[in-house]
């Protein structure tokens, strides 16, 4: 239903000497989402996960690549495509406080997309807004309130109501629970899961919180520096991670329990700058199991497993022939 082919988003930046260079935020990403699926993208800040979401909605400039939703090519951005896109794909942002206009009532905020895209007005409009608030579990009395009168969780529900107002088939959720407390986060997650079942929505769920992705998504892609480096069903990726980065990422989650599970030592160093990408495998500067004279030269290919793939030289069955040895 959503197909992204070889998407590249490069930004022009100047380095500290004033020379123009490229910041490769997303560098050759392909995604294929089935209808009714929840697909999670995880990665650290700066990995380009939010940029993908924005590029799909044409909120970020695409350098290269092709995007299709429901078989319609929306790579070209003309008026017709834009209007169609806004009705069929919507986004919920991280911070509901800044996503709602403080001077608009909840009624106006939720009604806005309906007014722009349809001819519903008056009583029908009000009834529709009430219906939407009911879907997200807010009572009618909220309709003439202002955002500051609502708690964080309630505001996020309003944002979701606004996003589903035009009955889109694709919903992009960009860290929808990061700004919320755990008890509220769990309410929103439960609600998102049931909403997806009821409306048969497709989710592109962007998060840095792996536990949340695991809870909500069927498939997951792990991003590092503009590339997806491992993809698979949530179960496979979380239970049998193949890529060393995925392993490190999973090992770094603090476990809420009395005894800490055995895990690998934390990764050394920081994520490199997307302006000055490492040659070869992008992870080799931090990789604990890198192969000398190979990982810093050649970018690894995708190595497919039954329920997913990962791009790492160590998964190459012909590794010996290429001539590398693990350090």
């Amino acid at each position: 239903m959503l197909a992204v082919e070889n998407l590249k988003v490069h930004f022009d930046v100047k380095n500290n000497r004033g020379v123009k260079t490229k910041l490769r935020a997303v560098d050759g990403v392909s995604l294929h989402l089935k209808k009714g699926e929840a697909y999670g993208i995880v990665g650290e800040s700066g990995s380009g996960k939010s940029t993908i979401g924005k590029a799909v909605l044409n909120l970020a400039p695409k350098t290269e690549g092709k995007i299709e939703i429901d078989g319609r090519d929306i790579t070209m951005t003309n008026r017709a495509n834009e209007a169609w896109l806004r009705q069929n794909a919507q986004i919920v942002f991280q911070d509901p406080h800044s996503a709602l206009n403080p001077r608009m009532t909840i009624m106006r905020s939720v009604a806005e997309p309906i007014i722009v895209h349809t001819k519903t007005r008056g009583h029908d409009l009000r009834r529709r807004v009430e219906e939407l608030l009911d879907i997200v579990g807010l009572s009618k009395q909220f309709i003439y309130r202002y955002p500051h009168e609502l708690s964080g969780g309630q505001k996020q529900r309003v944002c979701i109501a606004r996003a589903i107002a035009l009955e889109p088939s694709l919903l992009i959720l960009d860290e929808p629970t990061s700004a919320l407390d755990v008890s509220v986060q769990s309410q929103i997650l439960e609600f998102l899961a049931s909403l997806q079942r009821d409306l048969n929505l497709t989710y592109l769920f962007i998060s840095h919180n792996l536990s949340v992705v695991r809870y909500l998504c069927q498939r997951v892609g792990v991003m590092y520096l503009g590339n997806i480096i491992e993809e698979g069903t949530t179960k496979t990726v979380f239970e049998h991670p193949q890529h060393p980065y995925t392993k490190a990422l999973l090992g770094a989650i603090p476990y809420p329990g009395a005894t800490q599970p055995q895990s690998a030592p934390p990764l050394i160093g920081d994520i490199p700058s997307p302006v000055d990408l490492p040659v070869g495998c992008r992870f080799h500067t931090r990789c604990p199991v890198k192969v000398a004279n190979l990982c810093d030269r050649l970018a690894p290919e995708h190595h497919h497993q039954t329920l997913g793939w990962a791009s790492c030289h160590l998964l190459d069955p012909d590794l010996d022939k290429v001539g590398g040895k693990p350090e």
Partner: protein
Amino acid sequence: MPDKPILSFIDFKLNFDTFDGVYQAIDGISFDLNPGESLGIVGETGCGKSVTAKSIMGLLPSPPAEVAGGGIWFDGRNLLKEKSSTLKSIRGNEISMIFQDPMTYLNPVFTIGKQIVDVILAHQKRGNHGRSLTSKQAFQYGMELLDKVHLPNPRRQMKSYPHELSGGMRQRVLIAMALSGQPKLLIADEPTTALDVTIQAQILELISELREQLNLSVIMITHDLGVVATVCDRVLVMYAGQIVEDASIKQLFNNPSHPYTRGLLQAVPDPAKPNKKLKGIPGALPNLLNPPIGCRFQTRCSSASEKCTRMPALNKIRTNQKVACWNVGTT
């Protein structure tokens, strides 16, 4: 209990005087912190965990903050009764604090070195080490500190500006500054919330390592139960300005007893049990301008009864576990 506690809260109460009335941010909390212990304080937004930390440091402006009773004892002194000059020599030299967003606490227009040297010199002026450093020696000491927090290439970093460092590196710089006065107690207020998980793991490991090396007591304030489980020995669970449970890590996760603690644990997705149904805690925090009488959790508690309109005391129910709830038996 081995030694006498380094820090004790005794029935501490703190209000904020606002235009709408008196906001009872902290309502009678008592706990002890032993030397070398690492104590976590968890709770949701607005439960008073940061206010607790700031009142130790005396960082809350008064007005609006107003101590309404009780005391905070540190090393035999009541911090609430001390002169401000004494407090100045305690802050940084005996108690240090690191904060959530490292960028906000570094001055963007000065180099890291300049800022560390400033901190070192300021503290030794009021100092308790009895030595007086020249600025050259302070620079040297600054580099040693950066080395201690494992910042690569300290000499170069001393000359760089905050914007040239990543979030994790900035947090390391702040930790180095906090250690410059050789404190006995380090208060970390959500030190890793702004960081990525891999960087968070690095910082948490650093804090544990320094704690062991320097025999620091640590108070770790966080909303993340995972973080607490990684670095703390003991946890206080706070709700609406009160301590509802005080337990060792083992008891907290194996026998969570207060309904709120249980609710919190059920709300966190468990990496080991992905199909666990998540349960939120219905309702929202009570308004502390006009808090419910008695147990403050009663409005959201499923097992609340009439006796909950009286305030339950923090009772010991097992070794290393105290709970403030009428429905948890002390038998």
